[in-house]
């Protein structure tokens, strides 16, 4: 997959989205390692564009490398174990999708992790694992409406 890295930085501090995931296992994935990876695409949205949909941080990662996909799944599972609410679906013994609501931040913002392994899709599987970290006042229902077609 051609590398696509789009970074919307409206807020001055580019490190803010990274800090937002601190304390989570998936934080290690957002350390910039994928910026030069041709098999990954990383999106960071903060500022007004995110505020419009009641988020402070939208940080997503799409990866097509198998070993990286397994790593992401294992880290998501670790963070998912500490989630206060979760909705998961397994296919063939692997995580197909997971929607985790984490404990709130100190500022009272909701935190969510979404994971989707499209290799396990039934109709049109594709070699893609997506991880999205979201933080803001959006409710789980809002989040699902936003990210699901």
């Amino acid at each position, binding site marked *: 997959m051609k590398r696509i890295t789009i970074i919307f930085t409206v807020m001055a501090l580019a490190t803010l989205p990274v800090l937002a995931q601190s304390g989570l296992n998936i934080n290690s994935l957002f350390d910039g390692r994928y910026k030069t990876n041709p098999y990954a695409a990383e999106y960071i949205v903060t500022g007004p564009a995110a505020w419009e949909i009641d988020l402070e941080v*939208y940080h997503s990662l799409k990866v097509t490398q198998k070993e990286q996909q397994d790593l992401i799944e294992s880290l998501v599972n670790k963070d998912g174990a500490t989630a206060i609410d979760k909705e998961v679906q397994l296919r063939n013994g692997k995580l*197909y999708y997971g929607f985790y609501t984490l404990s709130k931040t100190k500022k009272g913002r909701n935190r969510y992790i979404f994971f989707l392994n499209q290799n396990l899709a039934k109709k049109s599987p594709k070699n893609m694992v997506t991880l999205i970290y979201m933080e803001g006042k959006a409710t789980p229902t809002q989040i699902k409406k936003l990210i699901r077609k």
Partner: protein
Amino acid sequence: MKKFYFFIAALFAVTQLSAQTPDTVTVIDAPRQVIITETPTGTMVKVKGKKDNDEYNYTYQMEHAANDSIHTSQDVDWDLNFPFKKNKKKDYHWTMETKGLYFGGGLKTSWNLVNNSFNWGILNIASVNYHTLHGQHFSLGVGYDNKRFSLKRPYCFVKYERPDVVDVSLYNDVSIYDRSSVLSVRAIQFPLLFQQDFGKEFHLVLGASMNWNVYAKCNTHFKTVNKTNYDISYRDIKQNKITFDVIGALSFDGLAIYCRYTPGNMFKKGFGPEIKNTWMLGGAIAF
């Protein structure tokens, strides 16, 4: 098979909650099929073992309590949406627009009696644009342009024998205060422009404009020693009806600096001084 184990685990958990003394309800060793059905009021689980053997089939119905938190997941594929695309404006090839309120001053003109000049207008009151969707725009529009040329102090516009010929003279002796003499030309302009985008906000605009000079006036104003105001206007003058400008502009986020070059003479040949090769430089908003 795994579904069955999940079911047994779930069943066991439910049984733990509903009764203090859990007991085995049934054991189906090799389930052929497990069907879980969700309804608004509850969940039904059917376990099928062997065909045509009721002993290997089991059905369990669980009603939801009023305050239960239920997570259901339909076994359908997810298709992800990038939520920020919704705010993106759809681009069209053809659009209409209004743009370019500009104000500028004269840099240079061929006639050395011009003290200063002023230029303002609206580049496109209305225009038709074609956007390639790859950063290039072509537009043809209609706008308004006004140019003013004021003479150096000792000189003023006058008319002598022929009423349609504008000439230049020194002020008379009595006119000693507030002297100004201005040629004003108003035009309906038809700019043909090319715009190249550099990123989202930065644009380069190049083009030409045909000016239909519909109105021209020479106005001389002065006061005499006894403070009497004189305001003399000549409207019946022979301006060139059609002139052409070359336009260049750089814009950033709606603000622009522009340059206009008018090679043609403002007056028809023989009907006034030669005011040509005029350069204007200024700023524009809503560009």
